């Protein structure tokens, strides 16, 4: 129990610290005191610039991290598969692909990008589910189908990019993610849909817990397994697509964070979902902050840093613990 409380306290503390550090650090460097004064008075010119350029980026990093991690948690619950993750099974690349297609052919519909993303993510998810269903879900088969679906959508997106140059793609990056050039408009979208998704995700925690039992056991308890699966899947796809629409594709975070969460706070989703949201936000923000400050003015994409930090940390945790989810 102490381990769980400490894990929460540490992660929340770090999240605050990194957020403040991230706001104060960069090409314009100010002290924390100046920053806080500026935020309240609105008189410090540097702080106004930070508000316009840096703050949207930070908020987007936080929400994208939270959304992708929680999406991973939900997909793992629904598919009962420790490898399920929006990046790996193609939900993110499906979301990216459909957005690119729509924006290429109907540029005026730019503001509907989140909707197209959602449709694309749902399409990929349905494909994976449909092709891997053979009187039950075989975990290995499902991941392989997911990898294949992901490959197809990623390839198609790259094809689209190379066909019409990069100018049209300002909103969406397909294969990696950058959080530069984000506006308050983007923030509005991700905060709105992200918050809705996260709240819904938390509301279904009990269903996620139930899915830890076998289908036939649940059926004999009168639990409507398929309805729960359907609802949880929609929430997972919503979260992954919105993050992809605004922040681009971050593979791996939806895999890393839930596993880190399971080793630290256990498999109960009432803790795992909020923990993953906070830890995912922390990971992406840390990665993005390091990415833009380490060797500035050159920017390292956040997804790269995230993969390096997160991967190393996961190996460390797995070596220490004897339990791996799904085993």
């Amino acid at each position: 129990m102490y381990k769980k409380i400490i894990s929460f306290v540490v992660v929340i503390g770090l999240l605050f610290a990194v957020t403040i550090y991230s706001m104060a650090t960069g090409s314009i460097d100010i002290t924390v005191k100046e920053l806080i004064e500026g935020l309240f008075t609105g008189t410090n010119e540097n702080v106004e610039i930070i508000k316009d350029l840096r703050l949207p980026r930070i908020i987007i990093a936080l929400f994208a991290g939270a959304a992708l991690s929680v999406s991973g948690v939900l997909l793992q619950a629904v598919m009962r598969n420790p490898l399920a993750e929006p990046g790996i099974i193609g939900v993110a690349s499906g979301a990216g692909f459909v957005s690119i297609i729509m924006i290429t052919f109907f540029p005026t519909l730019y503001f509907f990008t989140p909707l197209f993303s959602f449709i694309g993510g749902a399409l990929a998810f349905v494909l994976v589910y449909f092709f891997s269903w053979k009187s039950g879900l075989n975990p290995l088969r499902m991941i392989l189908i997911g990898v294949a679906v992901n490959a197809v959508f990623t390839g198609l997106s790259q094809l689209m990019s190379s066909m019409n140059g990069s100018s049209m793609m300002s909103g969406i990056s397909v294969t990696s993610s950058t959080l530069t050039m984000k506006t308050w408009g983007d923030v509005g979208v991700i905060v709105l849909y992200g918050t809705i998704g996260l709240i819904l995700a938390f509301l279904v925690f009990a269903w996620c817990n139930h899915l830890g039992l076998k289908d036939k056991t649940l059926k004999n308890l009168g639990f409507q397994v398929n309805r729960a699966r359907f609802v949880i899947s929609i929430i997972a796809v919503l979260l992954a697509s919105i993050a992809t629409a605004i922040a681009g594709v971050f593979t791996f975070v939806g895999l890393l964070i839930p596993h880190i969460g399971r080793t630290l706070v256990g498999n109960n989703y009432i803790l795992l979902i909020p923990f993953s949201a906070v830890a995912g936000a922390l990971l992406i923000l840390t990665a993005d902050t390091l990415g833009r400050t380490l060797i500035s003015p050159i920017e390292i994409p956040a997804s790269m840093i995230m993969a390096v930090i997160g991967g190393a940390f996961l190996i460390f945790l797995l070596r220490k613990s004897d339990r791996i989810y799904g085993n």
Partner: protein
Amino acid sequence: MEIKDITFAYQDKIKRLHDVNLHIKEGEITTIIGPNGCGKSTLLGVITNNNQPQVGQVILDGKNINQYKSKELARKLGVVHQQNSAPSDMTVEKLVYYGRLPHKNTFSPKSDKDEEKVEWALKCTGLYEKRNEEIDNLSGGQQQRAWIAMALAQDTPFLFLDEPTSYLDLYYQYEILELVKMLCEEHGLTIVMVLHDINQAIQYSHNIIVMKHGKVVETGNPKNIITKELIQDIYGVNVVVKQDDDAGMYIVPIGI
């Protein structure tokens, strides 16, 4: 419970059950026996609404079981499957609380009745002291009892057990069988189970259903139906059927 003209096949279209007709007597222990692949578990699946038969129906309290709402049916039938799995860090008590699911809505809190039933189920199965342990740390026999406790917490008049004694040591096998007997005698549960051991079936059942190739060959009181010829026919094994003052009726296999 009436089982009428059941014919069932999985997706491969091979018929696993042919024209099965049975009457399950309430308040008694009924055991299904038969060789591997004869359709025992498939039949149990049909009468617990996990397998949908192509032909026929299962009538419970005057109503076809597939007409029941899922929770309504779950308040009548408790099922313990042969293979179960739960998250490794779940405690026994948490697991047993799942048995209360059919009595609640998604967001309703624990009621006194929930607590009472869970406590009863834990005590019946001798797991009350172990309620805060994680499932993974229990022995095979204790795990099996934990799953039975979950079904008991469901508080159903019918309890179905699919090979509850498989993979257990002799002691734990009898522990489970004694538990089943106690549940029937003291709490009036109707119990239907699948067993492999014919002697255990004879010893603990009021009725036996003998199956072969998806058909019911014989059904009735063990004393009336278990004969040398029947076992030879069903299992292809030579047995002698004995009667003993202490052991009652039993069979001894002597060759094939």
